[in-house]
C-alpha cells in the first residue's frame, strides 16, 4: 500500500512506544543469532563453517534493525484498538483447537471452533452458527479423512463416521 494512505491514519499515543519495540525486537534477534552463529564456528572463507552464512545474514538483520531505530517512519504503524482483545481471544481459541485436536481428533474441536468463531467473531445467530458448525465439521471430515485419507488423531466420534 502506498505511503500517503498511512499518513491519514488516526494518531495514537501508544504508537510511539510500539515504534521502538519492533526494531528493538529485531535488533535483539539479530544480535542473539549473531552470537549463536559464532558459537557454531565461522570457519574460514576458504572453508566456510556452519555458522558463517547465518552470521552474515544475522549481521544484515542487526544492521537494518539498528538503522530502523532511527529511520523508521512513524506513520507505518497502526494504532492498537479495542479489537486487539478480539485477536487475543481468537488466538486462545485456535491454541485450544490444536490441543483438543491432538487429544480427541478432528470433528469435535472443528465443530466447537467453527460455532464459536461464527457466533462471536462473525456475529451470526446461534442457530446459524450451530448449523454451519455441524455441517462444516462433517463436510471437512469427509474431505480430509474420507477423500484425502489424512490420518487425523483418532477421537470418540470417528468410529461412528468411519474413516
Amino acid at each position, binding site marked *: *500500500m*502506498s*505511503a*500517503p*494512505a*498511512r499518513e*491519514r491514519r488516526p494518531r495514537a499515543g501508544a504508537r510511539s512506544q*510500539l515504534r521502538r519495540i*519492533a*526494531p528493538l525486537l*529485531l535488533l535483539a*534477534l539479530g544480535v542473539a*543469532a549473531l552470537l549463536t552463529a559464532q558459537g*557454531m564456528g565461522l570457519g*574460514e*572463507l576458504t572453508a*566456510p*563453517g*556452519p*555458522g558463517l*552464512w*547465518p552470521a552474515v*545474514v*544475522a549481521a*544484515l*538483520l542487526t544492521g*537494518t*534493525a539498528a*538503522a*530502523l531505530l532511527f529511520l*523508521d*517512519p512513524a506513520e*507505518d*504503524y*497502526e494504532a*492498537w484498538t479495542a*479489537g*486487539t482483545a*478480539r*485477536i487475543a481471544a*481468537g*488466538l486462545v481459541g*485456535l491454541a485450544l483447537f*490444536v490441543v483438543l*485436536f*491432538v487429544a480427541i481428533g478432528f470433528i469435535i474441536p472443528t465443530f466447537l*471452533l*467453527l460455532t464459536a*468463531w*461464527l457466533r462471536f*467473531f*462473525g456475529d451470526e445467530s446461534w442457530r446459524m452458527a450451530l448449523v454451519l458448525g455441524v455441517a*462444516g465439521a462433517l463436510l*471437512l471430515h469427509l474431505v*480430509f479423512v474420507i477423500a*484425502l485419507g*489424512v*490420518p*487425523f*488423531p483418532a477421537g470418540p466420534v470417528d468410529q461412528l463416521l468411519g474413516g
Partner: protein
Amino acid sequence: MGIFDGIVQGFSVALDPVNLLYVFVGVLIGTVIGVLPGLGPTATIALLLPLTYTIEPATAVILLAGIYYGSMYGGTITSVLLRLPGEAASVVTTFDGYQMAKQGRAGPALGIAAVGSFVGGILSVLGLMLLAPPLADLAVTFGPPEYVALTALGILLVTYLGTGTPLKSLAMAALGLLLATVGQDPITGTGRFTFGQVALFDGVDFVAVAMGLFGVGEILHSLERTEKVQAVTRGIRNIWPTRKDFRDSSGAIARGSVLGFVIGVLPGGGGVISSLASYALEKRRAKDPSRFGRGAIEGVAGPETANNASSTSAFIPLLTLGIPANVVLALIFGALLVQGVTPGPQLISQEPEIFWGVIASMVIGNVMLLALNIPLVGVFVQLLRVRTGILAAFALVVTMAGVFSVNNDSFDMWVVLVFGVVGWLMKKTGFEPGPLVLAFVLGEIMERAFRQSMLLSNGNLDIFVTRPLSGGLLAVMALVVVASILTARKRRTAFRHVDPEREVEAGAEPTEPTPGRANRPTPDTTDADVPSSSGER
C-alpha cells in the same frame, strides 16, 4: 526441442482431461477469491499448498497458476461495482471503474477489463514461449557466483519495488534468510538454531510459514476491523463494450500488455506495480487527463490488461532461472520443491511437460476466463453475499487441517499459529511479509551458491565481481540502490500521483478512500467485512 514441438507437447498435457479439470478449477477458484474481498491469491495459494502434494507436479502448477491469473480477472468485479479491490492489483481499477459503474456503465467496464485481461494474458503467454527457452539456455552457463548475484538481486528488487519502506523490507528479507538457516547445515549436517528440538532438524516448514503469515495473519488482522461495508449489487446489463469503447481503449490495452509483460519479468514486479504504472502512463498520455477518475475507460482497460500480463510473465524467471519474481511465484516455487522438482535452467529440457504444459494451460485458462467472465458476472457478484466471518472461520479450520496433512505432524500447526501472530504484528507495524517469504525460499539456494563460490575461488570474494555475468548483475544492484536513494522522494510522489484522493475530490465523494486498505462505506444493500488486501502482488 523446438518451440513448435514444445507447444504441441504442451497442449497434449494441458488437454488431458484431468489437467483440463484442474485449469477450470484453478481459474474458477481464482475468480471467486478475486471477487471475495480479503482473500487474495497469496492467501489462497498458501491455503491450498498442502492439497497440491497429492497431484502431479505439472497439474499442481497448472492449478496454482490458474488461481493466480484467475484472481486478476475476479478482482476487477468488486473494484468496479463496490470500489473495493478484491485483490491488491485491482486497486487502481477502483478509480475509474467505480465511476463508470455510477454512470450506469458497469457492464462495459467489466467487459473491457475481461477483454483487456484476455489480450494481455495471451500476448504474455506468447512472449513467455519465445523468451523463456533462450533465457534458459543462457542460464545453463551460470555458475554459483551468478546464482548468488541473481538471488541477491531478486531479494533487493523485491524490497525496493515493493510498496513498503525499503529498509523495513530489507530487514524482513534478512529475517527470512535467517529463518532459512534453521535446521541442518546443507553441507556439514550440523544442526543450526534447532534448540535441541527434533522437529526443527529439517528446518521450519515453508508451507506452515506461508500459511501462517498470509492466511492466519490476514484473518487475525481482519478481526480487528469492525467496520461494515455496504455493497452495490444492482443489475448489470450490456456487458459487451461498444465499438467506441474498443476504439478508446485499444491503445491502452496494447500499451498495458507490453508494460505488464516487462514489469512482470522483473523480480519484485507483478500485479500492483504493473497496474499502477499502466494507470500513470495512460493518464500522462491522455489529451485530457482530468477525465481520469471520472470514468475514463482507458483507466480500466490499461491497468487490468497490465496486471494480467504481468501475472503470466512473472513465470519467466521462475521457469528459466529458478528465481521466483514475487510472493505468489515463491509459493509456487515452494510447491514444486516439495514435489521434488527444482525449477531452474534445466526445467525446460528435463521436465518439458511441466514447462510447456503450464504454458498451454494458460492459453486454455484465459479462454475459459473470458468465457466465464462475460456471461457470468452476475453470478459472481452474488458471492458478495457470503459474509466474511463465515469465510474466515472456514479458512482457519482448512488451514489447520491442511498444514497437519503435509507432514501429519501437529507441530506444524503451532508453527502456523506462531507465524500467524508474527504476520499480524507485521501488518500492524508496517513490515511486509512478502520479502520475508521470498528470502526464506531463496535462502537455501543463496547459501549453497555462496559456499560453492567460496570453494571455487579459494575464499576470494573477488569472484563475484570479476566474472562478467555476476559482476554485471552486481553492477545492476548497485545502480538500483543508488537510483532508489536518488529518486526516493520522486517515488513517493509517483504513488501519490495515482492516489485516488484527488480524483475523488473532483467527483465529490463523501468518503475517504485509502488505496490497498479497502474499508470504504458505499451506499446500498448487502454487508461484508472487508479486511485489507495489501501485501499481495
